[in-house]
């Protein structure tokens, strides 16, 4: 149970505070309600590039990190399809430095040609390092495109291609900033050795006079059922064959979300889970096999991925997966198996509430999802899932017309 206070500034900035005096630190998280799903299909990768530019200095602070480090703090950020998140961890006595820095870059970023030029190159190298120069590194490019024909989840956060990043212009940067990086499109959460009162004062002082913006309403094209399996085979110079199956699933706030998450756990959470136990250990058909959900805000995916064992064809491996899925659809799982999954989830939730930064980030995440209160009812949602509900959901989700399959077939290098 995480206790917290919530308030809102006049300019629409939502603030969440969790007091924890067991730590000497304070964690600050600012989440902007913009992700790669909000990008122009011809200018993909921009939300993430922009995240890099947020460290390139603002009106009164030429360098974001220097003053924070001088205060004994550290910072980082990430972007995904749904949001952009910046976080700082700093000794609690110096928390005001983080308020100063975060508010200055929300007030007015330096729109510098030099910073843009350097970060374009940095991000292109990141693109190469994570996607192009790794075996299977392009999997998300293919899998998302197969799974989404209308919805902007069809490109990964890094962008469709390096060219989009190379072509980013300073005017795009300025537009994006005033459109999305406004207080009424942001959530500030603070956890650690602080008081609600002090955070309220600091928030008013540093963020209170940042003007509101006009965030355009989000109207994303929705994905309609494809009605058939989408399939792709990549013959590539990868070391081993690999296969990926992606099933469409409901959005994060849908009542079935928790059941689908548990479904992926039946298959693959822990070494006693069905895939690991049966397909890897008993039948020895795979070297590696895994199932998980993407956790997207809007309708997401349940993904199964595996690498067949030596001498096992990718088709045999695929068939074995489907056999397991058919069994899940044929009869409900045993009550004890469900209890095991719930016990595991309970542990995971308790262990995830162990430090200030994760608490700050979880609060902001749930607030963005609709309401920070949700942080305290997740365990109940999982607890309330029944074997009957799981069985129903399995029959709805785990069907061929509802999925995409991507195979990598290893091509030997000449």
């Amino acid at each position, binding site marked *: 149970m995480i206790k917290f206070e919530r308030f809102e500034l006049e300019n629409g900035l939502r603030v969440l505070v969790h007091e924890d005096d*067991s*730590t*000497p*630190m304070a964690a600050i998280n600012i989440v902007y309600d913009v992700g790669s799903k909000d990008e122009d299909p011809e200018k993909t990768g921009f939300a993430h590039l922009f995240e890099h530019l947020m460290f390139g200095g603002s009106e*009164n602070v030429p360098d974001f*990190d220097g*003053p924070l*480090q*001088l*205060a*004994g703090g*550290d*910072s980082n950020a990430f972007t995904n399809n749904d949001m952009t998140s910046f976080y700082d*961890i700093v*000794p609690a*006595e*110096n928390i005001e*430095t983080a308020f*100063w820095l975060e508010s*200055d870059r929300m007030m007015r970023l330096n729109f510098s040609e030099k910073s843009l*030029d*350097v970060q374009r*190159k*940095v*991000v292109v*190298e990141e693109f*190469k*390092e*994570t996607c*192009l*120069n790794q*075996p299977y590194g392009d999997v998300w490019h293919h899998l998302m495109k197969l799974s989404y024909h209308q919805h902007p989840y069809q490109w990964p956060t890094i962008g469709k291609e390096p060219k989009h990043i190379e072509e980013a212009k300073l005017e795009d940067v300025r537009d994006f900033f005033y459109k999305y990086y406004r207080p009424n499109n942001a959530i500030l959460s603070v956890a650690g050795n602080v008081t609600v009162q002090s955070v309220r004062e600091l928030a*008013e*002082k540093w963020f209170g*006079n940042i003007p509101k913006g006009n965030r355009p309403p989000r109207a994303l094209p929705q994905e309609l059922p494809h009605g058939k399996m989408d399939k792709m085979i990549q013959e590539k110079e990868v070391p*081993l064959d690999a296969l990926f199956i992606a099933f469409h699933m409901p959005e994060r706030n849908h009542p079935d979300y928790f059941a689908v998450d548990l479904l992926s756990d039946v298959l693959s*959470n*822990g*070494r*006693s889970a069905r895939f*690991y*136990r049966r397909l*890897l250990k008993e039948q020895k058909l795979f*070297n*590696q096999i895994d199932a998980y959900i993407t956790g997207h805000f809007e309708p997401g995916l349940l993904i199964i991925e595996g*690498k067949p*064992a*030596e001498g096992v064809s990718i088709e045999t491996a695929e068939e074995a997966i489907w056999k397991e899925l058919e069994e899940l659809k044929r009869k409900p799982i045993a009550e*004890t198996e469900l*209890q*095991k999954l719930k*016990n*595991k989830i309970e*542990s*995971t939730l*308790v*262990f995830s509430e*162990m*430090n200030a930064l994760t608490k700050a980030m979880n609060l902001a995440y749930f607030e963005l999802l609709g309401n920070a209160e949700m942080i305290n009812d997740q365990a109940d949602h999982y607890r309330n899932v029944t074997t009957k509900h799981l069985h129903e959901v399995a029959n709805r989700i785990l069907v061929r017309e509802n999925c995409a399959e991507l195979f990598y077939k290893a091509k030997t*290098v000449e």
Partner: protein
Amino acid sequence: MKKYKEVLNRAVAPPLREIKSIQTPPFRSFHLDNGIPVYEVNLGTQDVVKIEVQFDAGRFREKKQGVAHISASLRKEGTNSFSSAEIAEQTDFYGGTLQLPSNVDRASTTLFSLHKHLDNLLPLFAEVIFHPVYPQDEIDLSINNRCRGLQVDLTKPEVVAFREMTEALYGNIHPYGYNSVEETYRSISREDLLEHYNRNYTTDNCKIFISGKITDAVRKGINRHLGQISRKGNGKSLEAIITPKEEQQLFFPKEQSLQSAIRIGRRLFHRKHPDFAGFFVLNCIFGGFFGSRLMTNIREDKGFTYNIFSTFDMLAHDGYFYIGTEVAKEVVEPAKREIYHEMDRLIKEPVPGEELQMVQNYLLGNMLTSLDGPFNVIELVKTLVNNNLEEGYVEGIVDTIKTIHPAMLQELAGKYLTRDDMYEIVVG
């Protein structure tokens, strides 16, 4: 009403306060009935516990390459009383997490558990530690999967570069230098694993680290399940010979690669060396954090890479230092030039006061973070215990961070950041 509008001057930074003193966090120790020492950090509000049972069973104890790692990880694949499947099933059922981490020096068995399930998990945990049986079919499966995993890893330039570096520094017969290949794994037999296990996994070669919310019930449970068995050995570290490569510049071409992985490194010293704390500061300035010289120049000014860092690994018997980055193929030479330029600059020019102040504060804040929460604190306690570090060790490092001056840093740079001592590995 915007009452701050008139008074707020954003150009002026808020005043900073000095970071309060950092001390070794309190921990206690006691012995189980069989004499195994237990080190305990009792902190935190959640009803959770982490138990790590550690053996000095790393590569320095191996009679055959690869045995230490495989014997460590296969302990959960079957014991006297439980099959591999039962171990997995029971652990998962009680929401526990069972890990078998091992590194070149040591092997651990670690359990994370909620208080309420601990009694159900401890018997299983003790079995994995004291009664593994190494079934042949599990060995075969594990070695097959490992070989396939290796095939994937060896296509990654950064993996190859790191392997080539440790081999260059220590040679391929040294525990810190050799790299496992398929034949290494394939030549390991069940007898090899049992021999290594019996010789090294003994109660007189064991330490236990517990952290979280520790109650009497937790201590008693641990003593009941782990404190009653006694198994002595006379395990010692074996002699190891270092045979560094003569050639210091090694290039491994990879035609289809879009980037090159660069590793530049050298042997350093053991954690107990008097230069350790000073070098800790020097490394931070050079490549140890986002505001470092390498990051500022090579990423944030030139845009050559997504990431560049320098780091040092402190091992039980030695230590090494290296710089790592992945850059576009066409900028390998300029990137190397800039790396050496930054080393030279630290030798020739004193670090400006403002920069040093920033690094000092950053490191203090960082240490504070690293002492936040029971699981972080126990890691520090482990370092202290495993290296026989005296009381006041942490305070000594804090003192060096606070008092080190530019001339000392220059001297250290002149001693250690010397181009002639560096091995340079480029893959791609």
